[in-house]
């Protein structure tokens, strides 16, 4: 069941995925996915571990060559015009190293310069980003010495530096402390309100329900449901709907001995 909703507005979707598929050896990681992410939406991508979220996002952002299918960003084909399409995207990949022998400040500067921005703009934005993500005091520390949450934040800064029109964030809140997570949410909401599009993948249903306006549920490499959050969840909470769609809840009585009384 591939329910892809038609874009509500006339402008082309920020991200459009058609018939995307990828196989690793015997395992089909992504199985004919169709998805439209409307421009200006805050889009959540949820699914259990190994559902194919990261593989889909890697193919959508030009990091992993798909076996089949097309991806376009604001009408530009990612695999036919990669350099142009990538200019429109900012990416926070999951499970990928950073150039961690650079200091935080150097890393974000590097990301900006790689995008071909001029140095004064880079310097200004680096300063703003570090301040917004509460990293100014650690800006000169090497990224390799950062904690997990700080590493996530500096990677996010590197993804934001060129003010992309589409922001693709794979597990952005993992190991980020609650205060920083709230700051990041504010930044993302501002960004969406000003016309940007955000795609986040996450395990945390509660967060997606509160934060996103659209959501797609992915499992086993297929899209199980997609649409606005209210359409997908109906009367239930997103978490309940997710469990219903994906299945696999343990119905046993639990661990009877794990009671202290």
């Amino acid at each position, binding site marked *: 069941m591939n329910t892809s909703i038609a874009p509500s507005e006339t402008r082309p979707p920020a991200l459009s995925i058609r018939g995307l598929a990828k196989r690793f050896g015997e395992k089909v990681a992504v199985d004919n996915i169709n998805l439209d992410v409307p421009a200006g939406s805050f889009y959540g991508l949820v699914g259990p571990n190994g559902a194919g979220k990261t593989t889909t996002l890697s193919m959508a*952002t*030009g*990091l*992993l*060559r798909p076996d089949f299918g097309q991806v376009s960003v604001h009408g530009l084909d990612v695999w036919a015009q*990669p*350099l*142009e*399409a*990538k*200019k429109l*995207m900012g*990416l926070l*990949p999951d*499970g*990928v*190293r*950073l*150039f*961690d*022998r*650079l*200091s935080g*400040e*150097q890393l974000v*500067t*590097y*990301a900006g*310069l*790689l*995008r*071909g921005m*001029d*140095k004064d703009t*880079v310097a200004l934005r*680096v*300063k703003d980003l*570090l301040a917004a993500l509460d990293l*100014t*005091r*650690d*800006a*000169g*520390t*090497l990224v*390799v*010495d950062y*904690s997990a949450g700080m590493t996530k934040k500096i990677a996010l800064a*590197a993804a934001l530096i060129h003010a992309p029109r589409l922001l693709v964030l794979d597990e952005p809140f993992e190991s980020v402390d609650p205060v920083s997570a709230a700051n990041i949410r504010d930044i993302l909401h501002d960004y969406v309100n000003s016309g940007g599009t955000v795609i986040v993948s996450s395990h945390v249903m509660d967060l997606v329900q509160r934060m996103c306006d659209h959501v797609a549920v992915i499992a086993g490499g297929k899209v199980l449901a997609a649409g606005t959050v209210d359409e997908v969840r109906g009367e239930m909470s997103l978490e309940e709907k997710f469990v219903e769609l994906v299945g696999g809840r343990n119905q046993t009585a639990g661990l009877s001995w794990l009671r202290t009384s």
Partner: protein
Amino acid sequence: MVAHLLRLKVALLRNSMNRTPWQLVGLIIGALYGLGILVMVLVGLAVLGATDSALVGTVLVLAGAALFLGWLIVPVVAAGLDMTLDPARFTTYAIPMKSMLTGLALSGFIGIPGAITLLAAVGTAAAWWRHPVAAVAALICGALAALTCIVASRAITAASTSLASSRRFRDVSGIVVLVPLMLMGPIIAGISSGITDFADFLPQLANTVSWTPLGAIWAVPAAIASGAYGAAAVKFLIALATIAALTWVWKVCLVRALVTPAFSGKARRKPGKLGFFAMFAQTPTGAIAARCLTYWFRDPRYSAGLLISPLIPVVLVFGGSQTGGMDAVGPILSYSGAIAAFMIAWSISSDISYDSTAFALHLASGVCGKADRTGRVLAASVLALPLGLLFAIAGSVVSGTWAQFPPAVGLIMGAAGAGLGLASVLSSRFTMMAPLPGESPMKSKPGNSFATVLVQLGGFVGAGVLAAPVAVLVIIGAVTGQPLFGWLALLVGLLLGALYVVLGIRIGGAQYERRGPELLQSVSVDR
């Protein structure tokens, strides 16, 4: 509790074999190799026992001290050699320190190196078959010596882990060991020529070592065999004190390591220091060059190369002066600058492998192939060319004539250009299993296929062929003594070097743009 730890170690060993049959094959080969060494040692010891007891004592003390040193040094060089029972993993279980120490020490004997050491050490009794009392003493002392080896290696591992939570120590220690290894030849030659009568020297050395913690335990049976019971008792006490001291160091470091988390809080550093980024053009190309140059100095995998490359000419000069006399030193110094420059230039062939998945940033940013290739070439040439020139100048100063300066510079330019160009093309096509970021530069990865070796070999041969025209001119110039050929070599070297670099960037850049995702995929396999 001790038994639990031992059983855990056995279970871990067994499970590691279940993962792939190759692990089992590796273990069997290792065991056969170890057994072969053991048999040879035991036979050797028995034969040795037929000679006079002073010689037996000398051999055992020196060999034993060497073994002990090996157990001390190997864990430092090959960090994390056998951390199957890493004490840090037991922090959450409340294991009494005494049980933990005993269990960890005894578990050291489960595994090929530990088992062989124990058997060989106890087997030293075989060398004392003509002195039964000494043989009995050797059994006890051998067991104690093997235990000392294990405890020593554990102690130094624990000590270095408390240090190693500082990343800088880990980075530096891996490199520091490389330098003496590189200079091994000259050092050994120097020592052996200094000591004219090596055979006389060894017994003296053994005698000295036998009074130190290194050799005391191995010398006890010899002292007993020669009837020096007082000396035997003192040496045995030294040995006991050694193991007690090592255990104490181990315990203290372990206690500290268990309460100190692996992440060490660094002093916070304020922004404002952009380093090389402020010195290069603020374009994608310049940024990549600045990033690579930063890595040359900050990442031990690169700095190791930076440290070794200049040592190669030094080793060559040493070899040359042995055979060709002092006259050869100048020219060799000048021309070997080309090798140093080439080594640095060639190392960009593993650039993307060293980037590992951090390369995703280049790919996601849509960096064009030309910028990526040019940036990496720039960083390497900023280091390679001055280094080469330095050698050319030094060689000329040493030999007192500037005649070989132009051809040497030509050769350096040609060799560096060939290395940079070829590496730019090959690294956009092939990646290899390189040490991951943060790993020791010494760590060689299994799974480097035959193809990788072929690529590296092909690169060396190819660069040799590309630089050959310059080399031919240099040789003609040296044989005929005509300065004209030297100047020709300089001209051809500059032109060819530049041509190779331009072609390498163009071909490599185009290939990079076609194969970017595949390159990322191949470095993601191992992370």
